[in-house]
């Protein structure tokens, strides 16, 4: 044991008495300024999880909606199945998937994608259903085929509902992705619940939580902008 004393040692800091803002787990603007860089990686991962989950979810839900658009009887069953996926508590799903798919981004993405399906499917279907019959008749009268009708008439007119669905899906996914760390996928939930003082440290909660909120709002506004740009007739109508 005495051999250890020969070792160069790390010098303990004197922390008795006055505690700094950081040691008190307080809200410390300076610490935030100095450490904001540490949040870059979790933030980017959070963006990645959200964007990929919404993109996969949209691809699946869109395809399902187009199929169900032709075969109406499918709407009920698809809504029921995606509805069940949507209602499962996220915490449970991140754990339940692990014995099957291991830890990591894949597991998180499966869960997050599953959550977006109901919202996206419902909104695409709703959008297509809400296209006025007269317009479809008019298009039919001009000799539009089913395919032309879908891509040139129905989908453009359904765009507001489709994008509304994407906005809901994106903001919901930003929230759910805070639990992705439980599946080993990182994201802003990781610093928030880092196993150390994470959730007790106000500065950390403000930054990590704040970035979640900002990300959600940014994606929401971005999609709103896309909708405005893609459907100029709506703007004109006011």
């Amino acid at each position, binding site marked *: *044991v005495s051999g250890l004393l020969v070792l160069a040692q790390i010098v303990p800091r004197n922390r008795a008495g006055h505690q700094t803002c950081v040691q008190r787990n307080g809200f410390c603007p300076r610490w935030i300024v100095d450490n904001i860089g540490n949040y870059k990686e979790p933030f980017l991962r959070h963006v990645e999880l959200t964007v990929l989950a919404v993109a996969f979810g949209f691809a699946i839900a869109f395809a399902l909606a187009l199929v169900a658009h032709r075969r109406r009887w499918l709407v009920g069953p698809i809504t029921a199945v995606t509805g069940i996926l*949507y*209602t499962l*508590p*996220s915490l449970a799903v991140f754990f339940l998937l692990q014995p099957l798919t291991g830890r990591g981004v894949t597991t998180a993405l499966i869960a997050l994608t599953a959550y977006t399906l109901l919202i996206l499917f419902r909104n695409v279907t709703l959008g297509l259903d809400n296209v006025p019959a007269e317009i479809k008749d008019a298009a039919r009268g001009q000799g539009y085929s089913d395919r032309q009708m879908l891509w040139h008439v129905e989908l453009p007119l359904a765009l507001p509902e489709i994008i509304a669905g994407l906005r809901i899906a994106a903001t919901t996914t930003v*929230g759910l992705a805070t639990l992705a760390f439980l599946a080993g996928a990182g994201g802003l939930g990781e610093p928030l619940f880092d*196993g150390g003082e994470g959730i007790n440290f106000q500065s950390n909660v403000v930054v990590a939580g704040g970035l979640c909120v900002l990300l*959600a709002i940014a994606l929401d506004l971005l999609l709103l902008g896309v909708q405005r740009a893609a459907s100029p007739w709506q703007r004109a109508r006011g």
Partner: protein
Amino acid sequence: MVLASALSEFGDGLRFLVQSDTSSYGDTQVGGPHEVLRLLSLHLQLSGFSLLFAALVAIPAGLVLGHLGRGQFLATSVSNIGRAVPSLAIIAFFFSFLGPSKANIILALTLLAIPPLFTNTYVGVRQVDPDSVDAARGMGYGEGRILAGVELPMSLPLVFGGLRTAAVSVVATATIAPLAGVESLGTPLVARGVYGTDRDRRARRRRRSRLRRPAECRHPARAEAGRRPAHAPARGVSPPNPKGPDTMRTHMSGRLVAAALAAILLPAGLAACGSSDKSSSGTSGAAAATTGASSGGGQLIQYDAANKGKSLKIGSKNFTESIILGYIYGEALKKAGYTVKYDLNLGTEQVATRALKSHEIDGYPEYTGTALTSLLGVKPKDVPHDENAAYQEAKRLYESKYKFTALPQTPFTDSQALGMTAATAKKLGNPTKISDLKGKSQNLTLAGSAECFKRSDCALGFKQVYGLTFKKEIPIDVSQRHEVILKGKADLTVPFTTDGQIAANKEVVLKDDKQLFPPYNVTFVVRDDAFARLGPDLEKVVTTVQKGLTTPVMSELNSRVDLDKQQPLAVAGEYLKATGYVK
């Protein structure tokens, strides 16, 4: 195969709902109607009060604003913001600024419930046919009567739609309340350790007498997985049984399935009404004799070209100390020429062991006491109190049960203790060991995690081993273990011996003179095939670099992360430089 295993988990899960079992660490009953109903009632309390408060605020506000035709902007803003703000962020925010309490969770959930209720009520009133309102006015109805007698009834379908949306999201979100230290149906998911049971052990137990010797020692409170929990936790798993570690997982997962089932039933029931809502349901000593392998301390770690191209992935458990250790070993191995990747913050020892077994990682730091009781099936009373003996036992069992190599252990031990403020110690006549509290403890309050009070190696052990009773037992979240005595909410607490706060707060920690707690030195555990592949330098580097890790040093390193908020990687680097292992 997958289907069969999933079904068996569900079977185990269903049993959890209807029948209580002895938790694998043997000190408490988990599951069964009693516990499920208790958690259900807590869950319903959280959800019910939140919905009630939200309804009291949002419905009148929506009605009045809708009636007046004002606040269109407010209504859309509230609904957009409500949708965009992640529920977990709200809960974290309330936890860090207001502390863990039921009231805070209820407040956070109330905020989640307000947007859909307000928006739907507002829209509901706005879309009432103006002709009906005019007709009522013509009949001499006053504004209040129009609101109560015409607009409210006509907007009820939308108001209830909003209520349903709010209910689904509140009930789903209440599942994550345990992450912030408040019990709900999410508890069995988050505190996985406590909720694991072991059929084989249970069976053995039934066969044998019920007598249990008092000196059962394990490592309690850090169990609440997901948070500042630590080594010992999850007794989720059953130890050595002939079927091997694979079946362990099944049992644990069964609990998870059960908890998930229970948690799902509620929102599913709500949603089954066919809601058409779109809102977010938005939803954690001396080094061992074998250390001879390395030469003198403080020696610079040498680069060896033979290690070039050999890569390994290092894991860790989900708390500060384990993460720092992962980085210390990893950074040192990098200097020796290895290619090192990290997958730190894995979770409990079960999660880490599974990751190690399935080649997701190649090694991680584990505590000898935890490994013996929680992974290797040694009964707490059989754990050797000598740290070298404990290490040798762990090494032997790791090899025979898992084909893992347990490298020599660290000098420091991270055990639990009984702690108090200097002022309390003075008042009690400066006790030095736990036995000194005999005759005084009945006037003192003890704070500990809910689990601690159920375990024989924690508060229960104080009674069984030392014969101490306390005036009151105050259940707290593990993260509050130092604050609770600093703020005078309790006289005694159960800290970890390497907690940096002990020195910083000048807390007095009593000596465990009757050896309630087993040794908790750290051993770096490596899978045998990885051990063979990585060559002799692995063990050499690990044993060299941990020589400086005495209890005060480890405690200082923890302080730098927990108190000074430095990054664990940076702190590991500081250690390696200060001790001269790395230039």
